[in-house]
Each structure stands twice: as C-alpha cells, then as structure tokens.
C-alpha cells in the first residue's frame, strides 16, 4: 500500500507540471500586450512599460516560466493588481464560503441520493422506481444556477423562509452560517444528487443479481442485512468514483451559484477578477482549484483500498 501511495504521488508530478504550464501560458494567450490589456485603454505607455517590467514580460519565456513556477512552488501566487494583496491571501479569504457550500451540497446530495438509489434498485421496475428516476433525469437537466434562480423566485418572492442573498461566517454561529447556505446548497446539490442516485441504482442492481447475494440469503440473513451489508458495501465502489468525479462539478457549480446568491466565495473572486482583468487572481485561483481536485482524486483512489480488498492486494 505504501509503495502504491508513493507511485501514485510520483505520477502526479507530470500532471501538476502541465497544469502549471497551462495556467502560466494563459496570460500569453491574451491577444496583444498583456500589460496593456490589463491596464486598460487609459494607461500611459510609461505605465505599461513599468508593468511589463514588473511582470517580467521582457525576459525570455522559459525564464519567465521558471521564475513564476519557483514562486508558485513556494506558495507565492503573485499579487492582485486591483486589490493590492497577495493572490494567496485573496484565495484563502474567499475559500471559506465555497468550501462550506461545496461540503454542504455534497452532504445533502449523498444523504438523499443514496437511500433513493438503493430504494429504486430494490423496487426496480415499479412505479416508485420510475418516479424517482424521472425526477433524477429532470434533476440532471437543470443547471445549478438556473435552479438557484428558480429557488430565489419561489423563496424570495412567494415565501420568505430563507435568505436569498448574503453570507455569515461560521464564527457568527452555525445556524446563522448554514441559513445563508441552504438554498445555494440545494441548488448545487440537486444535480449531484441526481447523478449519485442513478449511479447507486444501477450499481445496486448489478450487485443484487450476483451469486453471493443468493449465498447471503441462503444463510438466513434478513433482507436488510443482505442489502445494506452484503450488497451495499460492494455497490459503494463505483459510487465512490462518481463522488470523486463530481466534486469537480461541484466546484464548477459553486462558482456560478455563488454569484446568484451573492456569496463572497471563490466564484465571486474569479468573476470580479475577470471584469477587472486581474489575471494574477484568475491564474492563482484556477491553479489552486485544479491542484485541490487532483489531490482529492488521489484521496478517493486511496479510499478504494479500504472498501475493496481486491484493490489492496493488487496494489501491494
């Protein structure tokens, strides 16, 4: 297992390098002079020249990359041109709401999707199954920001149960914190829930038709034990994969959903940076998110070993 972890970590190096290169060259994809674009049409040539110098744009490209990369590796993502703070600080200060939102949405979707998926598999072909799967299909087809808008319409205009905008940090109390995140989390989690429910259902159906399920029944085990102990543990393996893959989608959705509900998260940071042409912030944020995503997948991969002994063996 240890060797496997090391191997897996080593294999991430080229990927991280490519990720970094991509983020670096993003700036150079800007048509024309990046410095001039960043400063806007009113900037004087002197200001542009100063910024070019400051950004190191006059150096050879490989040297630029090397400088940038060594900075990044030390945790220095550069400075925000507009906010006049290190990008890393801006990132950290906007991380909280996004993380809370993503975790809440993930938790919410797992909690409703897995029981629904299992139920649909057990009642395969019945009205219950069909109804849930139609709902799941619909859920998969509503982009989270659209659902966010619709929830805003219903809750902001008709009912007045939950706040539709704003944010309160965890320090101000758990309920206060969660209250602002409920609607965003529902709109973000719905599509997740739909995907997970469908996956759980098909995975459970596969497993329930396997021979060892018959063995478990023949032992005299209760149906509940057969389903939740013997079948579910096996069905969990593909579900885990989906959870890892969809976490990326969750961040994606969070970025847009945040802007709908005015949450001061990473989404807002990036969107503001775009309108302000604050490229260092865009670069830094997407780099950090990509790296997080890669490490998250690593963790999911390692979790397999805990669930599936066959993986543990083959990877020893």
């Amino acid at each position, binding site marked *: 297992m240890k060797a496997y972890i090391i191997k897996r970590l080593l294999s991430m190096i080229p990927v991280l390098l490519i990720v970094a290169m991509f983020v670096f060259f993003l700036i150079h994809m800007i048509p024309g002079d990046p410095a001039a674009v960043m400063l806007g049409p009113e900037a004087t040539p002197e200001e542009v020249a100063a910024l070019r110098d400051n950004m190191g744009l006059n150096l050879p490209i490989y040297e630029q990359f090397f400088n940038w990369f060594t900075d990044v590796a030390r945790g220095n993502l550069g400075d925000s041109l507009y906010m006049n703070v290190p990008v890393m600080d801006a990132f950290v200060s906007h991380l909280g709401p996004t993380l809370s939102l993503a975790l809440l949405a993930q938790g919410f979707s797992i909690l409703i999707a897995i029981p629904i998926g299992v139920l649909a598999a057990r009642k395969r072909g019945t009205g219950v199954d069909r109804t849930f799967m139609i709902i799941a299909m619909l859920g998969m087809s509503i982009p989270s920001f659209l659902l966010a808008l619709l929830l805003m319409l219903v809750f902001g205009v008709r009912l007045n149960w939950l706040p539709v905008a704003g944010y309160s940090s965890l320090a101000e109390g758990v309920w206060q914190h969660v209250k602002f995140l409920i609607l965003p989390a529902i709109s973000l989690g719905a599509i997740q829930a739909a995907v997970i429910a469908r996956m759980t259902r098909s995975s459970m159906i596969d497993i329930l038709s*396997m*021979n*060892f399920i*018959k*063995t*478990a*029944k*023949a*032992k*005299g*085990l*209760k149906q509940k034990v057969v389903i939740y102990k*013997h079948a579910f*543990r*096996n069905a969990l393996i593909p579900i885990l994969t989906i959870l890892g893959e969809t976490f990326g989608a969750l961040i994606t959705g969070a970025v847009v959903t945040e802007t709908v509900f005015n949450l001061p998260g990473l989404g807002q940071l990036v969107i503001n940076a775009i309108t302000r042409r604050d490229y260092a912030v865009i670069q830094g944020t997407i780099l950090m998110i990509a790296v997080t995503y890669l490490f998250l997948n690593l963790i999911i991969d390692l979790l397999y070993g805990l*669930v*599936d*002994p*066959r993986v543990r*063996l083959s990877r020893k």
Partner: protein
Amino acid sequence: MSHPLLEVKELKTRFSTEKGTITAVDGVTFNVDYGETLGVVGESGCGKSVTAESIMRLLNEKSTKYGGEILYKGRDLLSLPESKMLDIRGNEISMIFQDAMTSLNPVFTIGDQIAESIVVHQKLSKKEAMKKAVEMLRVTGIPSPEKRIHEYPHEISGGMRQRVMIAMALSCQPSLLIADEPTTALDVTIQAQILEVINELKEELNMGVIMITHDLGVVAEVCTRVAVMYLGQVIEEADVDTLFDSPRHPYTRGLLQSIPKINGDREQKLHTIKGVVPALDNVPKGCRFAPRCSFATEKCLEEAPVLDELPNGQKVRCWHHARIKEREDVPDAIEAT
C-alpha cells in the same frame, strides 16, 4: 410416527415474465431422509436448480408462484412466513452453490462470512463464532485455518473456496444440505476431495443431502437414490443401483448410454439423445420427451403419462416402461451418431 426429513409433493414453481407465465417446475415429488443422499440429475434448464431454490424459498417471490407442498419435518415450507424461513435457511437447511468464486462476497474475509451465520443462528458472540469458524474450516480440511480466516475469497484457490462454502453451509449443523453442482467448476482431483468431505460430514451429522448435478459420475459416487428430471418433471426415480442397472425411462437410458465407458469398445460410437430440449414456454402436449423418443406412439404424443410406481419401488413416467425392462433386450432407443 415421526415425519420424514423432507417430502416434496407435487411442487409447481411458476414465474411470471414479460412473455407470460413459465412453469419451471411442474409437479415434482420426492423424499429425502436422514443420512440419505438423493441425486437430482438432468440437463441444464430441466428445473433442478429451481427445485432447490424453491425448497429454500430463495426465488424472487414477487414474480414466483408456488403450488404443492414442501414438508420439512412435517411443516410446509411454502406456507411459512418469511420470518420463519429466516430461521430455517442456513440453520436447518443449507445450500452450497456451483461457483464458489462468485458465491462468496469479495469484500468480506472468509472468517467473517462463516461466522456471520453462526452469530445469526446460534446467538454466539463474534469472537466465539470466529473460533467456531476456524473449527469448521479445519473439519473441511483446510490447512492452518486460523490464518485463513483473515483472508479474502480472491486470495485462496478454487477448491479451497468450495471448502469454505461447505464450512459456511454446515456451520450450524443443518439437517438437510442442498448441494447445487458443487463440483462442476473444479478440477477432477479436487472434485473427488470435495465429494469426500460432503460425504463424511453427512455421515457425521446424519444429514439428508440433495445432490444436484448433471454428472452421472458424481451420482454413482455419492448418491443412495436418484431422481432424473426432464423439463420440470421427475421422469424416473430409483435407488442408485437399480437406476444404473435397469433404467426404465428412455431418457434415462439415453443419459446412461451417453457416458463413455473406460472398458468399453473403442470402436463403438457414443450415444447422444436426438433432438433438443424444447423451451419451457412450449412444452409438448403429451409426454414431454415424446418428440425425442424412439419408443413414442400416438398415445405418447396425445396423453401425458403419470409417475408409475413399480413393485421394486422404482418410479417411471412412461407409457411403455413395461417394454423397456432390461437394458439389452430392447431395441435401441437411441440414435447412434
């Protein structure tokens, strides 16, 4: 008078499918007593596995309808509620399946899987159950069982897995063991060992065993009596010697003649039964074997024969069993190929 261990009376198992109802088992009757091994023989699809799973009530009961009776120690299993069946499965009646690899749960250790039924049925603690699991593995002939119990099914060999299945099935000392093709997936040498283990444990526990197989070699080796099934019906039943010496049903004769003999004439061609088994949703009107039978007459095609009991206790479902007395003095029922 005490009840026999198991009496299956006119068992009918019907499945409702999209295409309509299929009768997979159609009026099967047989008995199994303590210490006896009944072989159930037939081609695949003849209903032998469905019979076994009906006894255990393992089939999906939403789409399955039962008829007849399955009396276990005098109690009809078919009318028991599911909660009572839970106490019988794995405790009173156990089952071993054909493919041990896929019949063991890949994510639990062998020890966990054996101990599970002990905990459920004998109300022992997990620790005591594990001890018992080690004991059971030792009985089935697995070396260093205290190490093995921590291993996973994919870590041990096929023969070993089938021993684990046996240990699991017998861990609660059942009175009846149903073995559904327990050796089909194994090498010949391992096959013999596994049959040996089953036989020994049968003697020790005085269990009844139903040995489901398509292999007449297995039958000859371990069974005391044999029921031959064809298309959901028992077509002949007799003790093992009678059946091998004087089969009365043309189908049984066909089966027996299709086994190569070690001391037989090498020039002589092996026999096969002509034709193919009809589909279950399209069974012949009269005798089910008639379309493939060279003894068949008008009557056979029109009227279904009943299971006749002969004076020697042999049972045959054939209009012409009187004509098929001895193996040698009748015209060949079988087409040579």
